[in-house]
């Protein structure tokens, strides 16, 4: 499933500065493996060692936060738009 992936500024070091890269996968997990094959190191910024999505990384498929659609198991279709955005968060503690 060919999709377009929007990359946030802080992760463009992995994509030679590209804001958008093409990718392929039947679900989000497969897409991240596909991206990793060309953009080594990217997956490790998005997925924890135990294989789940980082708490402070948001991924959207066609504007839907994947936390509500099955996380890494979220299915992808041809032409889907995937957006990666780091959470904007912090605090005094």
């Amino acid at each position, binding site marked *: 499933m060919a999709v377009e992936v929007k990359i946030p*500024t802080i992760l463009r070091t992995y994509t030679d500065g590209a804001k958008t890269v093409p990718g392929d996968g039947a679900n989000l997990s497969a897409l991240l493996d596909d991206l990793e094959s060309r953009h080594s190191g990217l997956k490790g910024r998005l997925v924890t060692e135990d294989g789940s999505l980082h708490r*402070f990384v*948001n991924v959207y498929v066609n504007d839907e936060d994947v936390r509500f659609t099955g996380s890494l198991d979220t299915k992808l279709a041809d032409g889907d738009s995937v957006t990666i955005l780091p959470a*904007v968060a*912090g605090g005094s*503690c």
Partner: protein
Amino acid sequence: MLTLSTATYDAIVAHARRDHPDEACGVVAGPVGSDRPLRLIEMLNAARSPTFYEFDSADLLQLYKQMDANDEEPVVVYHSHTATEAYPSRTDINLASEPNAHYVLVSTREPESVEFRSFRIVDSVVTEEPVEVLASLE
């Protein structure tokens, strides 16, 4: 150095005061590459907490889509600390994800005075910078 207008400075402080004792948060967008913070967007603190802030995930997506459509970027990312100094916490440093942004911290711990400070946070290194407030950026 962060240069911003009096109106933007005042609006950030007013937002921080209004949401006290919870942390307030937001962005000041500007044209890509300009370093001019022109359009203030107050964000809801989805955590509604005196010690933590987080943009709501749907709001975050809308914000970035809108900035993209306008050829803008987040020139300033601001939030308040309501009981501690205006300095990035360990959490702030770990979660900082905009290497080009000025991170503004406002402390509202004193009711009569405000601390307003600006930092760069890149690869977990915090660098404070001067803040210049001008009558107008035009």
